[in-house]
């Protein structure tokens, strides 16, 4: 009885999200699309944080996904949105599978640093190969087509939103299942005590490697979705400050739930935009103060408010 009732809020939420394009302003819709897409990259950061692996270079995979698709547009003439997303996903997976072989041996601040170094090398490459990548001026992403749906270009924003919503939901659900799988539990156990996990006869490195690749693939998809929405990509996607933003949002949302990155991501986009609006000259100070407040008064991230509300309203 209780089970079927608990399903209703989710159903309502889902309906609300799906019908959002008919209600919300274009700007809010765009913001939600970008925030939802970035939440996928943040989800990867959260996944790794569950294993106590902090990365300061996750933007590497975000940029890899975006640029794989961007170069696909430029050199292969691809315009099909699904093909571009597939390309970005494969790029995220492929690059993380390759670099993962090296970085998964490291922990703590060294893991964070090595990832940072790799991301900055990619940043340098994107900057250097000016004739291929457009350097800091970046690459344009013309409006994609979604052959199957065949909707008009006028509804592109709504399409991109729905695409991000459905694809994002699917990937979030799969990640949620991964968290609940044996490998997911291993990652969580590593957080408490890695050596004990190793004693249990479980290959820690295999679990970390798997987690790393998943996080890479998620970031790749995030990159292409943001690229498609924004319409333009620059090497800043790989810059360390972008990686810092992902960690920022992960902590803002909290690592307790797969939903937390979405909440954190949306909140961050709004806070950042309003900080710009309220104090264009000192928005960094506003952001910094907001972050301090969260660290001291909401240590579990914004998501902990949801938990609080739940316990208050009873079972």
């Amino acid at each position: 009885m209780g089970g079927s009732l608990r399903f209703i809020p989710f159903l309502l939420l889902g309906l609300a999200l799906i019908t959002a394009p008919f209600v919300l302003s274009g700007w809010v819709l765009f913001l939600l699309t970008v925030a939802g897409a970035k939440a996928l990259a943040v989800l990867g950061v959260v996944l790794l944080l569950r294993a106590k692996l902090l990365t300061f270079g996750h933007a590497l995979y975000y940029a890899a996904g975006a640029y794989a698709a961007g170069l696909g547009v430029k050199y292969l003439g691809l315009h099909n949105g699904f093909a571009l997303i597939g390309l970005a996903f494969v790029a995220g997976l492929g690059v993380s599978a390759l670099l993962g072989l090296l970085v998964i041996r490291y922990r703590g601040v060294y893991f964070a640093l090595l990832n940072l170094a790799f991301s900055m090398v990619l940043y340098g490459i994107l900057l250097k190969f000016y004739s291929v990548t457009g350097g800091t001026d970046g690459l344009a992403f013309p409006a994609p087509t979604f052959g199957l749906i065949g909707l008009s270009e006028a509804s592109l924003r709504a399409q991109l939103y729905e695409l991000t919503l459905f694809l994002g939901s699917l990937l979030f659900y799969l990640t949620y299942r991964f968290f609940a799988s044996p490998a997911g539990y291993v990652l969580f156990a590593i957080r408490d005590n890695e050596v004990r996990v190793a004693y249990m006869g479980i290959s820690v490195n295999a679990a970390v490697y798997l987690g790393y690749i998943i996080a890479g693939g998620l970031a790749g998809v995030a990159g292409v979705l943001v690229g498609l929405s924004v319409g333009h990509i620059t090497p800043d996607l790989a810059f360390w400050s972008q990686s810092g933003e992902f960690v920022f949002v992960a902590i803002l949302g909290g690592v307790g739930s797969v939903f937390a990155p979405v909440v954190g991501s949306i909140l961050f986009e709004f806070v950042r935009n309003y900080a710009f609006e309220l104090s264009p000259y000192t928005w960094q100070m506003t952001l910094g103060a907001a972050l301090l407040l969260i660290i001291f008064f909401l240590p579990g991230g914004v998501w902990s408010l949801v938990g609080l509300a739940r316990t208050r309203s009873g079972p």
Partner: protein
Amino acid sequence: MNRYRKVLAGLLAAAGLSLFVATAKADPPAGAPASLKIAVVAFLSGPASGPFGIPARNAADVWIEKINREGGIGGIKVIPVFTDEAGPADKVVTEFRRLALEEKVAAVVGYISSANCLAVAPVADELKELTVFGDCGTARVFEEGKHAYVFRTNAHTVIDSLGAARYLLAMKPDVKTIAGINQDYAWGRDSWEIFQRSMRQLKPGVQVVDVLWPKIFAGDYSTEISKLLVEKPDVVFTSFWGSDLVTFSRQAKARGLVEQSIVLVNNTGSDIKDIPATVLIGSRGPGPIAPPDVEKDPLHQEFIQLYKAKYGLAPNNYIAHGAYHFTQALQGLKVAYESAIKKAGRWPTTEEVAAALAYSTFDSPAGIIQMAIGNGHQAIEPAPFAVIKQDPAIGAHVFTEIRSFPAACVNPPDGMKSLDWIDRGFPGAKC
């Protein structure tokens, strides 16, 4: 307290004046909005804020005040919405959408970074938002795409480096070796490419002895200067700007590079007092390095006075072309709106304003601006260059050997891509 009172007094005066002007003037055209919101986007933080962003923002501020004092645009008061351009492309585009969709601004003026102009242009078309780029350089905006709602009322970057090549040959016709030092990012690459190709056309046989690519904002250029001192090129070309230019040129001066080689800067945004004497320097458009006849230009004089009165500095001495460019954008908008109103006999649509701005010609503090190329969406401007000299009489730096290359000399004709035009030997150039 004092400052607060001043601001208040200014506000009251402005309000009173505009009230007076508004009542004195004829009724606004039919369908006119109560006010005209215009977004002004410029770097308010980061390294580009000092040389470009803040002067540009301040210039827009005083110029909008002036426009409002004189009755606004088409009798309608302009309300500026200032925002920071800093941040990655996704933030810049999100902010642009907020300005267009939430703030519902009538037009967006601004953008200093080329990357941001490239990112914003398609979005402006999508949202049918009239957008006038204020300062960015890349020629790609209108050479790679057509943008119905996007304009640039300043010249693109070709005039910087082609102008530098022409000025160099005017000052030192027998140049044999050149070296380049440019920041390792897109605009640094563009600048070197245009300069190098122009030199190849204008004086074949000039040898490039070295090309250095320090990281942007690297801060210290000692190593690069050592290498240039060892190589002894006739000319060192650089597209440094802001603090990088100040540091590089002062280190170059301290170490004798400025005496050994000609140091040629294609386009700068720095205080003239911070650049050593004998450095050759250019500016995108004739605002900061003004030819003598432009000095008599009443709009130019008015701009300098307004800016000085409110912000204490002269925008021309502080070589801030961003400041001039933002007034050009506002002038362009004003003239386009007013001619569209005249034509339509009522408040015009965005499309009508855009049509009026295309291929238009209007006056600005930096002289007459012609929207001559890029389907009438891209302005051309002359390219002024000068040598910085210490003037013992006034104890300050001044520009000497000022030379301005006419717009038709340093801009490609309408419909031709810049690099093709250079490689084909500047067909149609009138110098």
